C-alpha cells in the first residue's frame, strides 16, 4: 500500500497523520503507566508497613526464573524495535522474521510465568483468603501474594494483548501493507510492547529482589 492510499481525508499529509496517531498512543501509554502506578503505590505502602512479611514471602519466588524472564522480555523489545526499523527501511522479510521472534519471546515469557504460577498454586501461595501455605513463621504473607498476582497477572494480560496486536501487525506485514511511507501500526504496537517491557523492568527488582 502506498502512503497516498493510507492517507485519511481529514489529514493534510502522511506525516501529520502519523504524528496524530503517535500522540494518541502516548496518551494511552500514560493511562497504562497510571493504571500500574496505583498498584506500585499500594505495594510501596504495604511493603513499608509489613516489611518482614513481604521479605519472607518473596523468598518463595524463583530469582532465576525471574531473571530469565527479564532477559527474554528485553530481547523481545530488541526484536520489536528491529521490526520497526526494518519496516522503516522497506525490508519486508525482516519485518516478518523480527515480529515472529518477538512473538516467540512473548510465548516463552508466558510459559515461564505459567510454571511459576502453577508452582505457587500447588504450594497454596495465593492472594488474600485463598492463601493456604503451611508452616509460615511470619504471618501476613498473603498480602505479598495479593500484590504479586495482581501485578504480574495484569502484566501477563498486557503480554497477551501485545501478542494479539503483534499477530495482527504480522498479518498485515505478510500482506505487504507497510513501506517506509506507512508503517504506523508497526511503530505503535512497538511502543506498546516497549511499555510492557518497561513495567517489567520495575516489577522484577521490586517483587523478586527486595531486601
Amino acid at each position, binding site marked *: 500500500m502506498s502512503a497516498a492510499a493510507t492517507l485519511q481525508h481529514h489529514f493534510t499529509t502522511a506525516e501529520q497523520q502519523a504524528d496524530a496517531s503517535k500522540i494518541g498512543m502516548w496518551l494511552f501509554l500514560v493511562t497504562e503507566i497510571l493504571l500500574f502506578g496505583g498498584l506500585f503505590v499500594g505495594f510501596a505502602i504495604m511493603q513499608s508497613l509489613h516489611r518482614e512479611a513481604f521479605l519472607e514471602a518473596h523468598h518463595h519466588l524463583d530469582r532465576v526464573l525471574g531473571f530469565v524472564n527479564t532477559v527474554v522480555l528485553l530481547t523481545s523489545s530488541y526484536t520489536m524495535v528491529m521490526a520497526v526499523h526494518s519496516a522503516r527501511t522497506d525490508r519486508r522479510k525482516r519485518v516478518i522474521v523480527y515480529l515472529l521472534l518477538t512473538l516467540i519471546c512473548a510465548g516463552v515469557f508466558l510459559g515461564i510465568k505459567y510454571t511459576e504460577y502453577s508452582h505457587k498454586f500447588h504450594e497454596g501461595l495465593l492472594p488474600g483468603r485463598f492463601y493456604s501455605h503451611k508452616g509460615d513463621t511470619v504471618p501476613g504473607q498473603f498480602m505479598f501474594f495479593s500484590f504479586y498476582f495482581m501485578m504480574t497477572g495484569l502484566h501477563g494480560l498486557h503480554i497477551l494483548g501485545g501478542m494479539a496486536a503483534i499477530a495482527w501487525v504480522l498479518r498485515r506485514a505478510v500482506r505487504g501493507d507497510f513501506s517506509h511511507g506507512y508503517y504506523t501500526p508497526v511503530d505503535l504496537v512497538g511502543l506498546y510492547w*516497549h511499555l510492557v517491557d518497561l513495567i517489567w523492568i520495575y516489577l522484577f527488582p521490586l517483587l523478586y529482589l527486595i531486601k
Partner: protein
Amino acid sequence: MDAHQTAAATYAKVLGTLLALTVITVLAAGLNFGSWNVVIALGIATIKASLVALFFMHLRHDKPMSAIIFVTGAAVLGVFLTICTIDSSERDEYRVRPARESISVQPAPSVPGRHP
C-alpha cells in the same frame, strides 16, 4: 543506508547495556547495602527504563510532544507515590506494628478528642 546500519548497531548496543544492567541488579541484590538496596535497585531500573524510552521508543529523535506526554505522566506518578508515602508514614493509625499483629485488622486506637 549507513545511517540505518548505525541505528541497528545502536539498538544492539542498547540491548547489551540493558542485559548487563540486569545482571548488575541481581548481583547488587545479593550484597547488603541496608536501606540503600532498594534505592540501588530502583535507580538501575530507572536507567534501564530511560534507555528503553530514549532508544527503543525513539524519544531521543521524536518530536517533543511524545516526551512531554510521557514525562508528564511519569511526574504525576511521582507526585502520587511521594505524597502517599509521606502520608502513610506520618499517620498514627498506620504506624508499623509488630509483625505478629500485622495480619489482624484492628480498630484504630481511640485517641481522646478524635471521636467527639
